[in-house]
């Protein structure tokens, strides 16, 4: 599917509801018209074809219309959402962003950054006249990896018609899962439902109000939904399917879910920002054994690690060497076990802390905390946590006398302005003695 085919589809679905925020919804017709207005606006402001553009704002009809217009203008889009706002400056630098398009309430602000974007990978896209998408994921040396996608390759998999679900969106446009949900839903005439917040209460309310059928989410959220009891106060009988991915699913959560929502099918998904989201099939609702792949995907297992070759794969990283082998396979770093055609993901590479489905590298957090005046040394590691999979602990050796509660507040306030929320340590301890020896060991493990 090309961008213009997708836009034609939007027109074809006409008065159907496309996107709902709170109680208000926007039709396919409206999104189509808004997108055309956006395209005119971009051209009037002189945003050239092929330019690299950061799209900054909340998820909603306006930002979706803006995304489609940028795609039609063959721009390379760098989405910045409230989830990633703290990293905007780094995104703009690494992705060589030339234009900023910022949505704030009803206001739109389009401006030039003064950057030039000459990355060789961008050159390839521009030569072909295809729109691009830059998605960031955590990197082991602290700077997140910037994956460049050809949007035409991503869209290709939506050629085949699929089911038109009313779908609640959890992940935003700066995440491959969010992009997948958006394109799949709109290409098939479904409805995107954006909850007022991602609290269990608001999500349950939105499911009831809009009769949501599909909930793509993470095990951590499902845990919280069960704990909060929010599933009891609302009518969730419209739900047909819950898909979960991004982190290992605890067996107890799966068990409880099948008990409290017996009418809902549970399905694991698998994907990475580098490879795109694969089709997957769970062996049954109560296991994490799954079959992955399907059209456009090939897999192989080498030394217990899963490798993927995908037609929807990224072109490459903007700030790292190409990670593909000579046959075009990508090393996921996931350790898997195999039973015939079924596989089960056991764990990520050892150094990564997975907090609620987000990958966190300890060195990135250590770098931030150790830049505080109050801190002489710091060691960060993950601890298993039944609610969020893992939680982050920081052991700190302060540079002077300080009470633990005082130190906690200063570290959290300092981190709040510099790190995404899930990277902020939940447990902060005062070091007893030196961290060097322990750190040396840990550091060596991390870098191998």
């Amino acid at each position, binding site marked *: 599917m090309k961008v213009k085919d997708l836009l034609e589809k939007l027109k074809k679905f006409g008065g159907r509801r496309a996107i709902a925020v709170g109680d208000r919804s926007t039709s396919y017709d409206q999104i189509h018209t808004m997108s055309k207005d956006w395209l005119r606006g971009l051209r009037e402001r002189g945003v050239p074809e092929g330019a690299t553009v950061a799209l900054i704002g909340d998820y909603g009809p306006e930002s979706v219309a803006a995304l489609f217009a940028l795609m039609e203008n063959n721009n390379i889009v760098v989405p910045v959402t409230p989830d990633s706002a703290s990293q905007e400056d780094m995104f703009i630098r690494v992705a060589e962003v030339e234009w900023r398009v910022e949505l704030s309430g009803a206001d739109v602000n389009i401006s030039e950054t003064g950057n030039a974007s000459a990355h060789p990978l961008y050159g390839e896209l521009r030569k072909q006249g295809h729109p691009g998408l830059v998605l960031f994921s955590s990197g082991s040396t602290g700077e997140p990896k910037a994956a460049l996608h050809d949007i035409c390759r991503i869209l290709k998999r939506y050629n085949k018609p699929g089911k038109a679900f009313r779908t609640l969106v959890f992940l935003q446009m700066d995440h491959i899962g969010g992009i997948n949900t958006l394109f799949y839903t709109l290409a098939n005439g479904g409805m995107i439902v954006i909850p007022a917040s*991602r*609290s*269990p*209460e608001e999500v349950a309310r939105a499911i009831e109000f809009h009769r949501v059928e599909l909930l793509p989410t993470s095990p*951590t*959220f499902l*845990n*919280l939904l*069960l*704990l*909060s*009891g*929010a599933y009891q*106060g609302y009518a969730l009988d419209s739900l047909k399917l819950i898909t979960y991915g991004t982190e290992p699913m605890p067996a*107890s959560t799966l068990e*409880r879910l099948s008990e409290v929502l017996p009418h809902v099918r549970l399905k694991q998904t698998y994907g990475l920002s580098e490879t795109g989201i694969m089709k997957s099939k769970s062996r049954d609702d109560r296991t994490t054994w799954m079959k992955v792949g399907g059209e456009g995907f090939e897999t192989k297992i080498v030394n217990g690690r899963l490798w993927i070759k995908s037609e929807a794969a990224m072109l490459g990283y903007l700030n790292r060497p190409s990670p593909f082998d000579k046959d075009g396979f990508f090393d996921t770093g996931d350790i898997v076990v195999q039973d015939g055609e079924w596989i089960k993901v056991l764990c990520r590479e050892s150094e990564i802390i997975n*907090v*609620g489905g987000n990958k966190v590298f300890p060195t990135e957090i250590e770098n931030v905390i150790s830049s505080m005046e109050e801190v002489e040394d710091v060691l960060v590691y993950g601890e298993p*946590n*039944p*609610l*969020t999979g893992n*939680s982050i602990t920081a052991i700190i050796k302060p540079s002077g006398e300080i009470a*633990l*509660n005082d130190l*906690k*507040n200063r570290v*959290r*306030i300092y981190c*709040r302005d510099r790190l995404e*929320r*899930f990277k*902020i340590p*939940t*447990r902060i301890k005062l070091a007893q003695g030196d961290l060097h020896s322990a750190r040396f060991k840990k550091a060596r493990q991390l870098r191998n």
Partner: protein
Amino acid sequence: MDKPSIKKIIVDSIKNLNLSRGPDEQIDESPDARLLGGESNLDSLGLVTLLIDIEDNLADHECQVSLMDEKAMSRNRSPFRSVESLAQYIADFIESR
């Protein structure tokens, strides 16, 4: 440790945590506050942070408890739903030892 003292530690932990949270992320500091659901501002990360702070502050009073385990997670009515239910859970936990 008696229940009123446990409750005070929970509320003090909430007050301390609020110091590092933004104006729109404040958690209700009253002793009958709901922690999950309703108007509560706590998401999973916030809940984990608060529970760990409470564990630390209990430890300062020579009381070692581990609040997050499969037992707590698998209860039909979550012990984390309010200050009251959490205090009761901790009191029961201490008593059972």
